[in-house]
């Protein structure tokens, strides 16, 4: 669904690639939009974004999978300590409610 960028909150997932006025890809389809990214899109003059509906289970599962990858990568390069293992485990659990 098309939503005004000003209404979009971080965590929304782009259904289609987001392009600027010169058709350059600013964010590919499937990108989970962060606040920083939303600010950048605003600065690049983007007004409307096609995002997946939050009720779409496949899209949510996709976003969850991406977050899992991000966590695995981030903790993968970080020191291996009991506290970071615990934090990673709990963040992973919270992804699945």
């Amino acid at each position: 669904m098309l939503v005004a960028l000003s209404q979009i909150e971080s965590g929304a997932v782009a259904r289609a690639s987001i392009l600027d006025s010169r058709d350059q890809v600013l964010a590919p389809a499937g990108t989970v939009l962060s606040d920083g990214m939303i600010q950048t899109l605003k600065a690049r003059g983007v007004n409307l974004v096609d995002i997946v509906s939050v009720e779409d289970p496949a899209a949510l599962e996709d976003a969850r999978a991406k977050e899992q990858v991000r966590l695995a990568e981030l903790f993968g390069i970080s020191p291996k300590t009991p506290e970071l293992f615990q934090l990673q485990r709990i963040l992973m659990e919270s992804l699945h409610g």
Partner: protein
Amino acid sequence: MAEKPTIESLTDKIRNIPTLPAVLGELSRRLEDPKTSSDELAQVIQKDQSISSKVLKLVNSPFYGYAGKIHSISQGIMILGFNAVKNLVLSTSVFEAFRGVKSGDGFRIEDLWIHSAATSACAKVLAETTRKADPDEAFVTGLLHDIGKVVLWSTEPEFFKAAVTLSMNRHLPFGDLLQQILGFRDEDVGALLAEKWKFPPSLREAIRWRERPGQAGDQQGLASILQAANLLSCATGFHDLPSTPLGAPNTEEWKALGLSEDQALRNWIESSRPRMDMAKSFLEMLN
């Protein structure tokens, strides 16, 4: 790697960074006098029109839950307290001072401020639950904890970029990497600026010892809250230097905050998430 800065060269550069508005110094002096009234403090703040209008906007933000209800600085002081308003003036002044700092190749200043806002929210929640620090102080410390990185980025951008790349390649947290190659950390640079800007000693020491809370003396509680909050905001997607490793908290500090208990950690994460969003809106107003 670009030429390495030294603590002396950075101290020189920090000398050239403008001082914070005079209103802040006068406010601190007045706060030391217990006889000062809220009206007198309000008069001091109102001397700086730009700061007082921002403070009014902030106290009316959803973050404080008084949206549209506070009509004067003096009313804000009475409702939120002297220290909360003083912290607002401090945050507003620091953001004004860094307004000209731009993003560049390899570093986005917006990421750093969003990370700082998220950290301030996590710190406030943890201070409220553990009672190991004043929540308002924890909030402002979270907001300003990375000023050392801003100084490094704005004064030594080539070195900063190279250090970020090295931190990624060596899988070494950014501060640890700086310690290894320079002999000091970004927190030390932050503390230098905090000294120049005459931050309250508690704030300055918490910034300096964020990654080594055991050395923070009286400020150990605030520094350990800041360390944990910094970690949580990075881990939940608000990393200031994405793709660089997380810093590991000290086991004793983690335990002392109660976070070694799974349920306590879960509760903290769940309570912090919505506050992180509110803190981001606070940041937008600050900007």
